[in-house]
């Protein structure tokens, strides 16, 4: 019973992604298999070199880097959406797997959820 948590909102301007990350962390805390999918504007979570100190927010780049440590199985990103936002593979955070967010992908998970 594996869960896919989807982040499709960009970081900093909205809180939904952070709450999605907490959902993934809590599943991992209870040893439930979970992966994160970044699609749409959500792929902007994955850009290297974020420095949100000036807007007084925590870096989602740094927060997200804790995901593998806590046992989140995979960080997936929609390849087409990355391209749309000008994200080349080398600009992406380490450990991100490019996928195609299609019906095939979703059938691999028994449960799919957004944070809001």
């Amino acid at each position, binding site marked *: 019973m594996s869960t896919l948590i989807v982040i499709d909102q960009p970081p900093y301007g909205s809180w939904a992604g952070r709450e999605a990350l907490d959902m993934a962390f809590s599943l991992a805390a209870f040893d439930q298999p979970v992966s994160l999918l970044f699609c749409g504007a959500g792929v902007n979570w994955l850009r290297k070199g974020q420095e949100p100190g000036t807007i007084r927010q925590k870096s989602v780049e740094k927060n997200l880097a804790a995901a593998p440590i806590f046992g989140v199985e995979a960080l997936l990103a929609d390849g087409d959406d990355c391209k749309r936002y000008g994200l080349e593979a080398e600009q992406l955070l380490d450990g991100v797997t490019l996928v195609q967010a299609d*019906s095939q992908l*979703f059938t691999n998970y028994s449960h799919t959820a*957004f944070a809001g």
Partner: protein
Amino acid sequence: MTEIQTLHILNKSPEHPRFARCLSIAGPADTILLIENGVLGLSTASASASGKVLALEPDMAARGIVSQSGTVETVDYDAMVALTARAQQVISW
């Protein structure tokens, strides 16, 4: 009663990016249930989805959306509950 692979509950208006994403992801064995603002995309969704499209009647009525006879199946909350029980998986967009 036929099996539903995934029931997609879609409450976003057709302008919302999740609307198009939901339509593109729903497979032929899936059912899309339009609720809340989602019913505004009735014609778009029925035309482009590969699966079956249903709409929640109270949300249509609230918005003055009248279904052209026979083009879309409308359901009430009782039927919505039955659909969630029938589907293997439920995704709320």
